[in-house]
Structure formats: C-alpha cells, structure tokens
C-alpha cells in the first residue's frame, strides 16, 4: 500500500492507493476524495478527481499523475473555471474544446439535392458507409481530433445499433448518415457524416433537419450535440439551424512526448 500523510488546510488527509488506478483521500477513516483513471474504448486513459478541498484535489492528482505513464486525458466543463485551473496546475494542458449545442427540433426542413432520398438505415450498407467515413477521417483529420467520447473501436466499423441511424441515399448508395440516441428527455445527436465526395451539397443539413423534425413529431422539443470548436463546417451547420451554444467541454492532456 502506497500511503503518504499530510495536513491539507483544515482536514488532516491521508492519500492511499487502493487499486492500480484508484486513490482515496481519507479523513479519519472516511473517504472524502477519490482519484481514478480508466481507459476508454479507444485506449486513451481519462482521469477524474473528486475532492471537497482544492488542496486535497492537488494531492490526489499529484499521487495519480506520479504513478501513471503519459499520455493522460481528462475532461472539464468549460464553465468550471476552478476545476480547469486545478488540472492546469497539476500539469495538464488544453488540447481541444467542444461546444455543446442545444438544438431545437422545430426547424425548417431542408430540400434535398436531386436524386437524394432519406431513409431508415439497413445494416449492411450502413456498415459499408461507416467504414468509408472512418477511412476518410483517418486519412485526414484523424480520430484524435474527433470527440473525446467515442464508441468501441471494432475491427470493422463502429455501428452498434443501426436503428439509431438515418441515411441519405443516392443512386442506391449510402452517402450520408446521422445517428441520434433517443434519451428520454434530451436526445443526443451523436454523429453527422457525409462522404467526402458528396459534401457541400446540403445533404448533412437535410439529414439533420429531417431527423430533428421526426423528434418534434414525437413531442421532443430539443436535442443536444457536441461539436469541436475548430470544425467550422459543423459549427456552421448547427449555428445555421438555430442551435444555441449552451456550454463547452474542454479536454486536457498530459503528454511528456
């Protein structure tokens, strides 16, 4: 057991490593703080620290960061300046930011380009389109620039539940997709993607407005989505349909390389 004792402000706290990736702050035998590290499906290790005092946060973060190899990641709400400052003081730097959009579902439908239709997804061609989109992303911006929240990286594709997808079809071929997770109160727009050779024709906007209108008909007034602030095409898409930037998510990283 790796234990170091110190006095932090008011409480006398003991930091104890209780598992390979878990530390506790103990105050008189009671757990008053926790630090944990966990690997996401794409292999990136994300950290979290919960503490009631900044000094305890600092100690937990220091213990965890000393024990784990780089690279390490964490995420912070963009308005949580105190937590952001705490992680930066611990040695992490901002890697990327995402806007969190609240998207109204009562939006004007967008006309589709001639020859393009919107349909529910069939599994086979959906998986084929997913592989094409993934290959295009990997060849350009790379998935490291994609959202911190990623689906399990399978060998072939990332489609887990085809029922969550709506697709755009042209000449019998899938050219675009939108994935919406129907959470009870606030559905999440998880992915909007159009094949590179079919972009800039209004397909993404048409897919999105079609899916939002479907939610509206089911009595759901809003959805939400996270968009990388450097992705100008995506921010223009959401700004253009009247979505509101409600919040932001900051991803921080420590990479000794």
């Amino acid at each position: 057991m790796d234990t170091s004792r110190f006095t932090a402000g008011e409480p006398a706290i003991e930091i104890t490593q209780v598992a390979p990736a878990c530390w506790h702050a103990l105050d008189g035998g009671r757990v008053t703080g926790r630090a944990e590290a966990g690997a996401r499906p794409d292999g990136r290790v994300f950290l979290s620290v919960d503490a009631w005092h900044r000094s305890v946060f600092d100690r937990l973060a220091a213990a965890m960061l000393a024990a784990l190899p780089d690279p390490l990641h964490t995420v912070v709400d963009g308005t949580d300046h105190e937590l952001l400052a705490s992680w930066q003081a611990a040695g992490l730097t901002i890697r990327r930011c995402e806007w969190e959009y609240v998207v109204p579902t009562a939006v004007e439908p967008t006309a589709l380009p001639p020859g393009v239709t919107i349909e529910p997804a069939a599994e086979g061609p959906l998986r084929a389109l997913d592989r094409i989109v993934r290959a295009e992303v990997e060849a350009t911006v790379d998935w490291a620039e994609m959202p911190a929240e990623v689906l399990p990286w399978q060998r072939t594709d990332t489609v887990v539940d085809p029922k969550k997808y709506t697709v755009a079809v042209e000449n019998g071929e899938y050219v675009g997709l939108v994935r919406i997770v129907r959470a009870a109160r606030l559905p999440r727009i998880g992915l909007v993607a159009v094949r590179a050779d079919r972009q800039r024709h209004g397909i993404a906007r048409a897919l999105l407005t079609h899916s939002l209108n479907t939610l509206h008909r089911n009595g759901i007034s809003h959805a939400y989505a996270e968009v990388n602030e450097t992705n100008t095409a995506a921010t223009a898409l959401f700004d253009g349909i009247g979505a509101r930037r409600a919040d932001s998510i900051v991803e921080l990283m420590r990479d000794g390389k």
Partner: protein
Amino acid sequence: MASKGGIEVEGTVVECLRDAKFTVELANGHHVLAHISGKIRKNFIKIVPYDRVLVELSPYDLDRGRILFRYRS
C-alpha cells in the same frame, strides 16, 4: 480498518446553474448545491432538470454535494 464513504442520498435535479453546478432537492425537501462527479463527467453523462440522482453530501458542509449517479428515467 475498512474505510467508509460519505452520506449518499437520492434527490431530483431542480435547476442547472453556471459553473457545472446543480440545485438538487432531496427527498426531505432540503436543497443542496451539487457538482457532478469526475466519473459522470468522464463518461459524458448529461444531467438535466428532473433527473433523479444519487448525491454524496459533503462531510464538511451538508448544503453541498456531488452527483454520483443518474438513475434511468
């Protein structure tokens, strides 16, 4: 000696505040100012008003807490 955790109580989110904080009404009507736990943040779990949540109260201030878990509605 086995270590104990904090006091955990169920409540309902009544308001989303700035700085990623929430007002949570506990079953006894008491309101606490709560932030989300690192695990919830790390897993991108969205907290919105009317969500039923599990809150750990601060042993140093019973008016403050952190949201440990969001129940499925």
